[in-house]
């Protein structure tokens, strides 16, 4: 299920703004309906934060500092639960940017500006030993 989720994601994520402890990213998501599109947009954001980093931001390198495949094997239970529903708990705000787009394949696409509580996300990763606390 995790592998399917990850392969459905596309990294169309860009930086909107950041403050101390939060980051707002614009992300696109596609789905069978608007809810699925919104969820995929949010998952894209977390995929980029965890595995890629956002250039020109305070999170310019991936939060998980081991290769993506290795992380998905090593922390499978955590990541499955995270991308299922838990990611929602780190979103402080989500605003639709523009209209919902409909394609000929009957899918819906949407752009969302999603604000993530990065401080809480980082702490959660550390508490679950997915990443190391600052230091050794």
């Amino acid at each position, binding site marked *: 299920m995790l592998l399917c989720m990850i392969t459905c994601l596309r990294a169309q994520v860009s930086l909107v703004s950041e403050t*101390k402890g939060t980051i707002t990213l614009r992300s696109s998501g596609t789905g069978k309906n608007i809810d699925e599109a919104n969820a995929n947009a949010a998952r894209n954001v977390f995929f980029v934060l965890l595995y890629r980093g956002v250039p020109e931001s*305070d*999170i*310019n*390198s991936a939060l998980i*500092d081991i290769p993506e495949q290795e992380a998905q094997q090593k922390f499978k239970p955590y990541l499955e639960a995270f991308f299922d529903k838990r990611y929602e708990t780190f979103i402080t705000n989500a605003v639709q940017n523009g209209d919902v787009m409909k394609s000929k394949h009957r899918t819906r696409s949407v752009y969302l500006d999603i604000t993530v509580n990065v*401080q809480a996300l980082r702490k959660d990763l550390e508490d679950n030993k997915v990443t*190391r*606390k*600052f*230091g*050794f």
Partner: protein
Amino acid sequence: MILCLMGAGSVTYAQVAATNSYGTVNTVQPRIMVIPFTKEGEDIRTVLDEDVTRRIAITKVKEAFDNRGFSTVDFIGKLKSANDNKVFTSDNQEDIKSLLIQSSGADMYVQVEVDKQESASGNSVNVILSAYEAAGGNSLANKVGSSGKFYTEDYGKLTTKAVNACGSEMMNILQSKFTEIVNNGRSVMVDISFDQGASYTMSSEIKGQDLPLSDVLEEWMSKNAYKNNYHLQGTTDLRMIFDDVRIPLKDQATGRNYNANRFALEIFKYLKSIGLEPQKDVKGNTIYITLK
């Protein structure tokens, strides 16, 4: 009697009940101190008394560490302690800085430089952050932050903006360097020299090894540096300096914390085993071996 003889070569220490953690080991964290940069003519001991923007810059950098849940070594406290213990024996600024870092026990330090810029189109502050390993002086991270130009003389606020512009990224770079250290070992320096009147030099052949002492030492270092990672700065007849030897953070056999002192002990035991008379001294992450 046999049991006594078997135990004669090793020393065991009883676990004190009050400190027993039943096998749990917490990794010893690096000790990091944030210090001010000083220009020609400035004294690191008094420079903060005279300049509030430097105090703000140092505090903001320490705040960046605090935000990541990491406590730093207090520069002012260590300075006071060094003064009280009469650590400074000269007024040479480089000596004072080195002695201060050494006496603080810091493994790493972050030097903070504040540069005020005044112009008709507005004032700004640039902050230069440079992090180094205390032993060996390896550079760990470098960032420049700029406040941008404003029509203000509140250099404190401009300094805060400048540190905020680069503080998080500095922490990210440091964390990636820490990951490198976790994976590839901590750097220590090993300085081997001879006591006056010693009967050996680096060219002396060691009995049983049929090699000069310098080659014997390098052979040992090649086998025992973590992941074979070491750098030989140079060898003369009277001195050999390995300026970067990697040792693991954890003892690979026991999983316990490992440090320069333990590595120095291994060097000491080896040198004794080949018939030499070593003396060891460890200052932070620098190991001094003197052969008699």
